[in-house]
């Protein structure tokens, strides 16, 4: 089992994204990096942030940040820890989560809306990691 959030978790995520042919197809023209921000609730007491360098269907880099402000990115996708758990368990759809207010996106929304299939494939990838929570 891999703990979420952790560097080990995001390393596995990167590896699995790079094996996901459906993601590669959906994101083949995607250019833009992301910060995934996990806001504290429940057992998570401090915010956690991941930086992901996503480019033309591949994940070129993934890193857990020491603080959410350590890096900037084109997009930030943020939500409470409990909602991230819901997302990884596929109980929350990544786009419906945005429209229903469970997640927030900073960055060019129009651009993201053209790649909703890629977003789904990222979630699909996350579900494959045997995740345990704090």
């Amino acid at each position, binding site marked *: 089992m891999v703990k979420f959030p952790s560097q080990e978790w995001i390393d596995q995520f990167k590896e699995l994204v790079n094996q996901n042919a459906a993601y590669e*197809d959906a994101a083949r023209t995607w250019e833009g990096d992301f910060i995934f921000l996990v806001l504290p609730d429940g057992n998570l007491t401090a915010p956690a942030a991941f930086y992901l360098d996503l480019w033309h269907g591949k994940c070129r880099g993934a890193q857990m940040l020491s603080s959410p402000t350590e890096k900037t990115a084109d997009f930030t996708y943020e939500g409470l820890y409990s909602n991230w758990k819901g997302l990884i368990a596929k109980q929350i759809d990544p786009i419906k989560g*945005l429209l*229903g207010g469970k997640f*927030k996106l900073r960055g060019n929304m*129009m651009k993201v*809306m053209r*790649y*909703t*299939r890629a977003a789904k494939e990222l979630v699909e990838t996350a579900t494959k990691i045997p995740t345990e929570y704090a």
Partner: protein
Amino acid sequence: MWFFTGPKLVFGPGSVEFLASLNAKKALLVCDRFLVQSGAHGRIVEELRKSGAEVEVFGEVDPEPLVSRVLEGVAVARNVQPDLIVGLGGGSAMDVTKAIYALYERPDLTVYELTPLVEMTLGKKARLIQIPTTSGTGSETTWATILTEGEGGTKLELAHRQLIAEWAVLDPMLPATMPPKLTADTGADALCHAIESISSEWANPFSDAFAKEAVQLLYRDLPRAVKDGQDAEARESVHYAATMAGLSFGNAQVGVGHALGHALGSVLHVPHGRAVGTFLPYAIEYNFPAAKEKFARLAPVLGESVVRDARELSASVRKLWKGIGMSGSIREIGGITPEAFESALPELVTRADQSTCVTANPRVPSSADLKRIFQSAWEGKPVDF
């Protein structure tokens, strides 16, 4: 947690008289160019004047409206300073009206920011009323506005809950002059909305209720309305069905049929209803393996044996299409040579792939799937993968 939102409805023959009760001081009427040319907008202007309002008309909306047209309308609105904005026409006019309304209310925004993620509260300067003159787009009920970036450009699929009108006025006298082909195209669009929202991942008990009723009314009355435009009962039924279908997909999303249709519309200039109508049977066949239980909800309307079999269900749509003159394949639409289709195919696939309409489609289409559906729909061969 999810939502069901829509405008208040005023309906019935002569319901445009409602406009006279709105007590506006200055009204801006946004409408299709052909309505001004034919003088058909005059009745609406008259009703608005009865309310005591000064009326300004922005009658410049064409099919497949460009962002630049919206900006012209915004300039008019800023000049007129209306406290009432009325959209009159088909989907294009109502979509343009929504965007004009938003940018008039919020001069700091651009059209590109009309997305669900931007915080905005509109309605501080003006009320928004929508009056459809065709029976199909459902734009009078929805939060979406489809604009084209520039000639031949991508369709921007914009949306915000604040773009939903306060009132939709459903007067079945207005679509009575639609010619048969337009009645067929717009009615087909309505059926696509209803069926695609039934099979959507975001379908919910409220969207299903409206979708089922819309499917029932359209199967029964669309052929009548196409055959005899003067059949007032059929016109009224189809007009309300289109709004019901709008309420349904506006709260559940459309699907791959609309993604393919928007691509075909923007690349090869096929009217929206004709494009999505052509794709509907293929979209049903493609989605069926992933949406059996969802389609089964149409059993009370179409019959158990029809909804339990992909081919039976798509055949029932094809039969309806035949009766109203809807194209059975892209080739049948006419005006597109095999060479033009082949050379447009990569662009068609890319645009369909990047459409927000696939977001809630029950089966996630890869770019290879989209290509195969386009090819099936070109040849008129059922989707069997």
